[in-house]
């Protein structure tokens, strides 16, 4: 009996199914990451056309992009929107997450579903509706339209990430702080927020990236203004030039650097070690 059990367990852990799994998964992961690597390599071409591998390497397209006024303006607009949207989205979403977690259990699910519903609404539909409203208020093609529109799609992500952190947060930590003389606000400030900082950071990263990369809603709302994705799109529709690869690599770098910085800052804020 014991021997049979062993041999079956061995069979369960036998190498072949696992090997196939590893090989297949590696291919999938390659499929996920390779295009971006190829894109970055191609962006360093010195030719006037794209090819892989590039015959000669250089940074001429980066130079061109960086000194191009169109790209500068687009990058500036995208960054401006994302930098306004991220903190606002973090504050508003965190308030909602707290309200849901600390509010009555009854009705929580329904209200939460409503608060995160913009997440499952196709952006084309939202963009269409927002365009109509923006036209009515005569604010289309301005930050007054872009920022609230972006907030609508970023806040649900903050609610989800911060909500998940709050759920695992042990409320007695906050109560301990209260009994030690901290008011509700300071208890949250000194205890809760630092401990749920992974959720806050994730929410901030999501907000920034979603806003920075948003295309279709801004596409509807903008007439003359161009964010980076809009500029890339119109360039792409016109011609596939190496400059588009260089811009893509640059935006990739911006989001990657920002993510790393936020994660690192989060570590510092969180005081390092967080026990489960």
């Amino acid at each position, binding site marked *: 009996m014991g021997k049979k059990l062993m041999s079956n367990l061995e069979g369960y852990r036998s190498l072949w199914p696992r090997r196939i799994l590893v090989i297949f998964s590696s291919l*999938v992961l390659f499929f996920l990451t390779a295009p971006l690597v190829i894109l970055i390599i191609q962006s360093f071409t010195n030719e006037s056309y794209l090819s892989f591998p590039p015959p000669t390497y250089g940074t001429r397209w980066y130079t061109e992009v960086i000194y191009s006024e169109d790209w500068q303006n687009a990058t500036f607009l995208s960054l401006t929107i994302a930098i306004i949207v991220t903190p606002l989205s973090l504050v508003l979403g965190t308030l909602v997450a707290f*309200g849901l977690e600390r509010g009555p259990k009854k009705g929580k699910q329904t209200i939460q579903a409503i608060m995160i519903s913009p997440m499952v609404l196709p952006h*084309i*539909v939202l963009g269409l509706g927002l365009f109509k409203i923006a036209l009515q208020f005569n604010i289309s093609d301005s930050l007054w339209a872009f920022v609230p529109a972006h907030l609508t799609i970023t806040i649900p992500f903050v609610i989800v990430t911060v909500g998940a952190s709050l759920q695992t947060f042990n409320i007695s930590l906050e109560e301990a702080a209260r009994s030690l003389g901290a008011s509700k606000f300071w208890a949250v400030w000194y205890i809760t927020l630092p401990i749920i900082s992974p959720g806050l950071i994730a929410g901030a990263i999501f907000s920034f*990236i979603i806003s920075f990369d948003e295309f279709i809603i801004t596409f509807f709302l903008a007439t003359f203004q161009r964010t980076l994705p809009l500029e890339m799109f119109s360039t792409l529709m016109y011609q596939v030039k190496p400059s588009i690869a260089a811009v*893509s690599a640059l935006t990739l770098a911006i*989001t990657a650097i920002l993510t790393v910085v936020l994660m690192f800052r989060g570590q510092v804020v969180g005081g390092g070690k967080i026990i489960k």
Partner: protein
Amino acid sequence: MEKIDNNKISSWWLLVPTSFLYIITFFIPLITLLVMSFSRFESSVTTVGFYLDNYEKILTDGITLKIFFQTVELSLMITLFCLLLGYPVAMLMRRVGPKARLWILLLVVSPLLTSIIVRNVAWVLILGRSGMINDLLISWGLISKPLPLMYNAFGVVLAVVHVYLSFMVLPLFAALSSINNSLEEAAASLGAKPLSIFFNVTLPLSLPGIMAGCTLVFILSMGVYLTPVIMGGNFVVTLPMLIEDAVRNRYNWPEASAMALLLLVAIGIMIVISSSIQKWVKS
């Protein structure tokens, strides 16, 4: 013992700022679309009222409905491919140690750090007429004419799968990792072969994750606009593209609104189907 504490209701004040924003940026736009979809559009003039013209048109003109079903078909295909590619990765993530798991997770979510447009550009550079693959194949003398790798459904599906695969792997992994290992070991100890363990234990228990992942990817795919435009040229047309065209080129808001609502209905049906499957699985 249900605790009803009036103190807790006051927490809902924290929802007020966001609710206020949502009213303006979410609920009013949706209601506006609903109203618009029943309005009449005649010689560039929109008359608000209760007309079924737009719905009649999109359901009977032959082309809108066809494109709608094409969009559904495309979305189902994307969902299926995401599931087939994502499931093994999620399974591997569950089997390996915590360190390897973190690395795989990073690779899986890394495309999320780049915009859809960047990822599409990458595919254009790979699959295009003078893209990497055709370039290499021609220079090796394997083909003489470039293969049509994009500006067709293949290119669109491939690029969208690349964009949404992460959204499939994450819920799958969550569902798989909540399955107790000992269940599979128990099955193994009863003499079950790996493949039958997978089909009788692992797969059914991960069904909630499968449903969550598929629903999410399907919904996202239904609304996809950018990738078909870039990867499909004008050869793959989706409902979102029709919506955009109706508004931006023809200023026909009522028709665009009706198409948007058709899209929402399709998504609503998908959510109902998936939640009823989940309920059925639970019982």
